[in-house]
């Protein structure tokens, strides 16, 4: 089915490694659930994931990172359950653009959980590139967010963990939401009953 329980949006500037992250996640995780949909390309990926013995279909929306489409990204994260904002620790430019999305997400999509994801960890670990974004700044930024991960699509490090965390959070959130919804319905019913009583009186 083309319907998904969760919608995860990938944001980030060009060449930051969003698509690689998705490909890594979708294609290399054979042990827990196979991709239930043959994906053409990596623009949209759907995958079944498990959380607390429950299965969820997760749809991952890739977005175009090019700056000329920046105005349109708002359409993508409308109604998203979670957003992964990717940046390259070795590129200050990607970090500055991240701030723009962060701001927008906070104002436009308040319910959306935001995860920061520093990519190309293997390059930094190998000392091939220099870290440009200071860690303390990242730490301060990620305080108000749902999580921060440093991932490597090449080695697969932290990729599964990131997505698993997202799904767990969403599932928990879903449960809470459902409870809230049920409680609200309950309240409403009670209120209706009360109103009726009142009317009869």
């Amino acid at each position: 089915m083309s319907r998904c329980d969760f919608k995860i949006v990938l944001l980030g500037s060009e060449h930051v490694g969003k698509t690689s992250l998705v490909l890594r996640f979708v294609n290399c995780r054979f042990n827990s659930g196979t991709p239930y949909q043959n994906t053409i390309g990596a623009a949209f990926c759907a995958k079944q994931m498990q959380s607390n013995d429950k299965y969820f279909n997760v749809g991952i929306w890739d977005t175009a990172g090019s700056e000329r489409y920046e105005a349109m990204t708002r359409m993508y994260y409308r109604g998203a359950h979670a957003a992964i904002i990717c940046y390259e620790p070795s590129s200050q430019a990607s970090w500055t653009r991240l701030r723009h999305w962060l701001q927008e997400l906070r104002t436009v999509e308040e319910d959306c959980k935001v995860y920061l994801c520093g990519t190309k960890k293997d390059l930094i670990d190998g000392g091939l590139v220099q870290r440009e974004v200071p860690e303390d700044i990242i730490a301060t930024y990620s305080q108000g967010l749902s999580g921060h991960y440093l991932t490597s699509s090449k080695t697969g490090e932290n990729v599964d963990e990131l997505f698993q965390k997202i799904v767990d959070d969403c599932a928990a959130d879903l449960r809470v939401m459902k409870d809230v919804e049920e409680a609200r319905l309950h309240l409403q019913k009670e209120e209706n009953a009360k109103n009726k009583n009142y009317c009869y009186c």
Partner: protein
Amino acid sequence: MIFASKMPSLRIDQSDLKCKNGCDYFGNPQWQGYCSKCHRELLQRQRRAEKASSATLPKPEQKKPERGIKLASHSSFSKFEEKRLRQSETLKKANLLKFSVFKKSSTDEHDHTPERKPPEFKIPALINEGMKREFRVRFTNLPPQVDRDARVFVHSFIMDVIKCSNVMTVDELSERVQRHYQHFMKYMDTSPHFANAESEIKELLIDFVEKHAMTYLHDLPGVVFSPIGTEDERLDRAMSERIQQLSWVGEKHLECKLDRTDSACSQLLYKAISELLAVDGAAGPGGKLSRVRRACRHVLALCGASASADDLLPALIFTVLKANPPRLVSNINFVTRFCNAQRLMTGEGGYYFTNLCCAVSFIENLTAESLNMDKKEFDCYMAMPASIGGSTWAAALSLCGAAREAAEQRAAARALLADVATLRAEADLLAANADSFEKEIAFKVNDVLANTPLEIKPRREPLRLSSLRNSSIPLIDLETPVDTPAPMKPSEDIPQIKLPEIMPVEEPVTVTFDRTTDEKITQNIIDFQSLEKPSPPKSPQNQPWELKQTGSFELLTPSPLGFTPFDSRSIDELMTPDDFGSDHLAPGLSNINYDIDLSDFSGDNSLAEDTPKEPKDPFSPDGIKKEPVFDPFQPQTSQSSYKNVLEKFDEFSLIDSKSNETSEAFEVVHRTQDSCTPAAAEEPGDPFSPVQKEASILDDSGSPTSACLLPSPLQPQTR
């Protein structure tokens, strides 16, 4: 306080309290400063005006498409364009007015309470039927209540949307529709009918409901698709113009990796474009969405194996630019407003649809900057007539269309060729079958011919016999010595004599039939086939007197037995036309024979049809008895002339055979027949009896067919 707002000064003039109309009554701020009478008049006037222009609708200015696809008004939108738009708007309104009058809804809605108003507008039964049919096909294992629920829901849904469409803004309507979907979903969760339905089935069900409700509403003018009060239609036109103007934008400007010369690439692009064009044709939001999905999949395939959003979006923009789909904005707005939001937000279709929205939005706001282009160059391109730009791609695409057509035709030709091959194979098979059949038949015929060579011998035998028979007394004399031992012995011995005779006879019996067919051909020339044919069906019936006839029949075929019944002689004589009226017959009867001849010719056609009936008639001896009385003199009364002829012959043969000994009268002949059977013969106790009885027994046993086919009537009699 109201006065204060009206008049800044604290002093109130009396004229301010009077009716605004100038009549002498006092006005009231509740009535907008009019007196009650004037206010009522004003209201009535207003209402009339509203009715005329269906002004119950919210003003178009108040409404904005939900997803603000704003279009920078372009210089090319001349006044003419505006005028056309206005015209079409009024046309639409008129349409709606008619529609609403027909369904008797909202224009006078505020006069009635909704409960009192009977829903005169009926949803065509077609929807109901269509839903029923599809439900049966798609949800085979769901209880019928679910089907009913779904139909009830769709019904109320459509009614509600139609009712609300005139009084609500599009956004409100959209919200209401979404609430309907949610309501249905909630209903599915709580209702016992859906207790054992899986969540996937529920999703399918809501798609099903959405599809049927929206497909109907989609076709109503101005209700859900580019509704009145929105600018959808104008935006459609603007979009179309815009795309046309941007036709010069190529793959290089958008930085997508497309190869115009690659035929596979242009084929994919062509497919994507045709899917995009088909979006307008699909009725429901689900259908439109699936078209978009297919188009985007083609676009993704166009981009290569591991295409990401960075590749998809530019390629999609390019595709939209080349496709210029009709009523693009209306379609997009329709889907965003009335598609089940849950589906739109998640899932693959939603993703691609969002991409399409992005593409459209990008095209709307396309500037020199977004194409990484010099402003002057951009302006230069924009000033260029639309027909020039993009001609290369247009050519490539038209080529693609031709190629596609050619491919289709090739496929059709291939299919035809395959058909031809199968047909040819079948024809060959048929020919082979026919050939083998022919051979088989030929072989069989040869076999039969070989087994039963045409011999004229048996013919001679009856002749010899007949010559012997001519002197009746010696024949009996000849036979009596053979049989004299039999009567001497007890009667039980007679069957013993019979049996050995029967056994060898059986084979020739089958052969005789074949022989007759062979002989028929030869006899056709003489046109005596008719005489020949009826005899076989008669023979099995074995009336005592008919035995003689079968005996005669055998005479035509080689009978292994030297012995033939003496009665056969008569038929043998009849076989040759010369003998017909020959001396053997009584002179009086010979005339009748000639009549028979004629009727024989005329009855040729009826022959084939009547042959099966024949065995019945000869069966009953009374029928035979009756016929000879009538027939010879009035042949026209007979059902089939041929049958009569035959029976006459039989009679004659009897007469003929017996006439030598007995009288000419028919009645007498039959009696003599009966007397032939031993039981009957014994009773009279004739002086001849010992001799005659034996002779008659011999006759019976002598006719092989009769003996083998009907031994039972004979045996008790002999005993």
